């Protein structure tokens, strides 16, 4: 059908609509015609662009500016090139903190994702208990971060904290997060799991709720076990929300600051001294703006790259 076709011969309103022959030149004109497009939508994006510029881009540029200079005083600075980047990447303290933070994030993901999904699976789907469960699960998310730190700082204490006291006196295990680096690490990890597993659980719960009923009915009819139902129906359909959950939890845990700062202050020794804590020590504590700037940029870049890798891997594997 290359020629112009018409609803030909159709008697409409008493007149026969003639067929319009296709003109070769007409077709050529079509191609040449720049299509009128509505570009007004860009204006609506402008406020966002402006505010992002002020909140993100301009501060970032300041950091870039610091990272290539040695600042003695506001009026006295020298350009040092990539010197700070070199020194930061070679600094054993930074390297140790980097490994520590990566390890922490990995443990957080390994614990929180399965735990959150498990929680979502067992949560009631309807009735009063659904609301009760939702509120209970969501509770830790409503508490400000520094308060979470304070709660756990007290809770885990061996003398007056309920948790610490129970471990020491009931279970008979010597536990002191202010002295023992393993104990401190476990405290911070458990605190993060307590604080953030609910987020994973809520996301997974929403994902599970969106699976149509016939899928579960079909699984029952096909004689699938609870595990098979989870493995072949629920898990595949949670892919989308779990991708988001993993990204969020990775970014957040990799940049964790407030809670360990309140509970352990990075100690004992450097046991819980994560990148963010080290960074604030360099930047605010020692006021070494150059190294801190370089450090920040590397930190920022690393999070970006890893998130990109996560995202690509997770979405690709779904095809």
């Amino acid at each position: 059908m290359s020629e112009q076709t018409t609803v030909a011969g159709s008697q409409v309103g008493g007149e026969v609509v003639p067929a319009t022959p296709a003109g070769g030149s007409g077709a050529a004109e079509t191609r040449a015609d720049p299509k009128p497009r509505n570009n007004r939508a860009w204006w609506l994006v402008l406020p966002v662009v402006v505010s992002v510029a002020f909140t993100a881009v301009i501060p970032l540029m300041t950091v870039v500016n610091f990272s290539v200079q040695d600042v003695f005083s506001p009026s006295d600075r020298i350009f040092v090139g990539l010197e700070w980047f070199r020194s930061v990447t070679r600094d054993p303290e930074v390297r140790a903190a980097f490994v520590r933070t990566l390890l922490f994030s990995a443990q957080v993901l390994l614990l929180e994702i399965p735990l959150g999904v498990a929680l979502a699976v067992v949560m009631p789907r309807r009735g009063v208990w659904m609301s009760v469960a939702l509120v209970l699960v969501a509770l830790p998310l409503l508490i400000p971060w520094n308060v979470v730190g304070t709660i756990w700082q007290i809770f885990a204490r061996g003398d007056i904290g309920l948790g610490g006291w129970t471990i020491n006196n009931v279970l008979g295990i010597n536990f002191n997060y202010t002295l023992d680096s393993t104990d401190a690490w476990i405290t911070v990890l458990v605190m993060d799991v307590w604080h953030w597993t609910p987020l994973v659980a809520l996301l997974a719960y929403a994902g599970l709720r969106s699976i149509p009923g016939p899928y579960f009915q079909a699984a029952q009819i096909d004689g699938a076990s609870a595990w098979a139902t989870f493995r072949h129906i629920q898990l595949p359909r949670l892919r989308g929300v779990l991708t988001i959950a993993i990204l969020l939890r990775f970014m957040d845990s990799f940049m964790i600051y407030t809670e360990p700062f309140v509970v352990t202050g990075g100690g004992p020794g450097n046991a819980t001294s994560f990148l963010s804590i080290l960074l604030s020590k360099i930047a605010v504590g020692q006021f070494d703006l150059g190294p801190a700037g370089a450090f920040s940029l590397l930190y920022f870049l690393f999070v970006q790259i890893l998130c990109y890798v996560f995202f690509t891997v997770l979405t690709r594997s779904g095809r």
Partner: protein
Amino acid sequence: MTLILDGVSVRQRGETWLDDIRLELPNGMTTLVGPMTAGKTTLMRVAAGLSPPDSGRVLVDGKDVTGISVRKRSVAFVYQQFINYPSLTVHENIASPLRLDRRFDREGIDRRVREVAELMGIADLLGRRPAELSGGQQQRTAIARALARPVDLLLLDEPLANLDFKLREQLRADLKAMFAQSRSVVLYSTADPNEALSFAAPTVVLGEGRVRHVGEVADMYAHPPTLAVAATLSDPPLNLLPGVVRDGRIECLGMSFPAPRAHVDGTDLILAVRPHQVSITRESPGALALPAEIRLAEVTGSATFLHLLLPGRRHLVAHLPGTQLFTPGESTVVYVDPAHVFVFDATGERLLATGAAEVDLHG
């Protein structure tokens, strides 16, 4: 007004969804018929301005509107799913497009809402919300909303597909009467050949993103120009048999009859016969006999569908009138009148007798 699609193509992820569509739609109703993946919805979306074509133009009364947003055009769209505002009553739902139209004041809106609600038979449901309606009533509401504001272009994308069979029958009749007086361009898509036939409107047959043919639907049914058109308009489906030309005659599974026009020996052909043209008694002296094995008989009361296996494991369906009983596994002979056989070449083009008038295939 008239709507013209001038060489419209749409490509998505390397696949061609619409391929150089050239159509001119006049005032009144046009049916768009084609199987599920023919591109009907894509064509309607382009016509409405909901998605831009990759190439080609959309013209309204000769004016290029290709890139113009749907909100600036005078268009209404009815989807296969019943889409209404869940928090609004039926009255508010129908009134919603009128509130944006300066031509209607408060009383004008109310009058118009009651008018279309009356037309769609939902006048006593105006106070209810969509959740309190049956599927049929919800779709009536959605159609009423589309009809409320006088528009240049009304698009209905398989609006009855999700409804009960009986409800479909009734709404089809109502819509047919309504569109008969319409002064806008109405494009109605369907996958159901019987629906297309019952509307008896100018019809566009779409397949694999291409316009297969345009014309009066009854005419296309009786004289299909291509195999694709014949297949799209046949329900129950066409019976297809392989044929070959020998000495100016067509041979097919032991049958032989004169070819409509001279062809090179050995040319492969496709023969098509509609199920209701296959009989178990010889009804005309020229009818050809085909030995067959009975596979299955479906008796519906008004008709019997006989599923047959021909030599060479070819399937054939006969649509016989009334209730007739058969035993599966038995052998029988069925008859086909060559005058009722459509002959297509290997590319699907119909072979017509040269010069001679075509036999009327009605009945």
